[in-house]
């Protein structure tokens, strides 16, 4: 910070606030000295910031020598509703979801044929639990196997207004997703894109 002496306390406070907000980890006080090297004043500014947040849903709390914003206890108790956390979907589950999306209605054994591996138990169950797939009609073939189809919540999650909005095969090809780049020699007279 070149001109930190010309920066007034009010601005310093804002900088410290934004810095703690944007940090991935609790911010050690030594890092904040970059913005205010007078330690007493720095502690004052932080105290003022903490006071500013006293009546908020979030608090600026001190852990050891570091500072971090946390949901206030008052609110986190009430927010103890289900919180959604994201975690990646396993590869197998994504593949099965994609196959159901593109091939629906599709039976378990059809999915196995496409993937060339047996489905482990629970993978479709997981997708069902998440609410992205549901059982469709049974096929009128021997054994009357159950088919799987996608749900409205599947469309919602992927921001699709209807199933026809899924990119089609041609479009996958054009977008470059679906291509083997295996051409050994290309004919220069050929105007391939």
């Amino acid at each position, binding site marked *: 910070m070149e001109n930190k002496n010309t920066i007034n306390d009010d601005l310093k406070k804002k900088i410290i606030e934004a810095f703690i907000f944007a940090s991935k980890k609790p911010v050690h006080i030594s890092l904040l000295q970059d913005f205010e090297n007078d330690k007493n004043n720095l502690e004052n500014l932080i105290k003022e910031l903490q006071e500013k947040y006293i009546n908020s849903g979030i608090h600026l709390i001190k852990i050891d020598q570091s500072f971090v914003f946390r949901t206030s206890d008052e609110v986190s108790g009430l927010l103890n509703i289900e919180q959604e956390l994201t975690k990646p*979907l396993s590869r197998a589950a994504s593949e099965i979801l*994609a196959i159901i999306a593109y091939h629906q209605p599709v039976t378990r054994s059809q999915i196995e044929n496409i993937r060339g591996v047996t489905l482990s138990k629970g993978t479709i169950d997981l997708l069902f639990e998440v609410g992205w797939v549901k059982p469709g009609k049974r096929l009128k073939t021997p054994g009357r196997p159950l088919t799987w189809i996608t749900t409205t919540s599947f469309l919602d999650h992927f921001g699709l207004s209807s199933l026809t909005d899924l990119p089609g095969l041609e479009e996958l090809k054009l977008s470059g997703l679906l291509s083997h780049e295996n051409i050994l020699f290309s004919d220069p007279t050929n105007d391939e894109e």
Partner: protein
Amino acid sequence: MGIDLYKPKVLKLSLEGFDGPIDLLLSLVKDQKIDITKIQILPLAEQYLIFLKKVVKEDIELAAEYLVMGAILTYIKSKLLLPIEEDEIDNPEKLSQILKFQILKLETFQKLAKNLFLRRRLGKDFFSKGVDEIFSKKVKFKYDINLYDLTKVYSNILLKDEKEVITIAYSNLYTVEKAIENIKKNLTKIQKWKNIMSLIPNDIKNYLELKSVIASYFVASLELSKDGKIFIKQNNDDKNFNLQIIKNN
């Protein structure tokens, strides 16, 4: 064949910097520092065609789009130079208007794109919270997969499924065997020393093919002379690699 093989490649032109024929036209306009709304089509067409001619000599991998534009501009040029006929279907004025419109449109989007990236950007000029915070003990997992991931996964399944096919693209090269055959066919006609270039077919379509024809004829002539069918001589005084052959009687 209008292509001069022996000319050293002094002029190096490339279309790499250009993103299509309209982009090329646009930069020709910009080079002239003329007001983009006052483009004169005729001089612009001429410049484009000159440029294209130079590039065609150097770069045979020229995309078809550039040639199509070349054809359109040639058409406009010829029409503009002739008196305008009544009831012209493809009115050259109309065509030029459309062309100007497209140049202007591309320029506009190039500017907009540039300005977009000059804006304050998240992660560089302003910041998000450092981390997502967990405040609840009851956590429902939301699976993080977006449409891109889904289509990517699906494409991979399809690709895995497809038998790996290696395509060897058709290449239009001239074989030595064909050259030998052709020279032999012409041998009865050869009474005196003949330049090898005069024997090559005259329906060669492009530079690459021409190069392969010459190479094959050269190898073929060595082959034939080894077999005692022909003599070869090279005139040293000639700067050009002037190979001559004559039938061995």
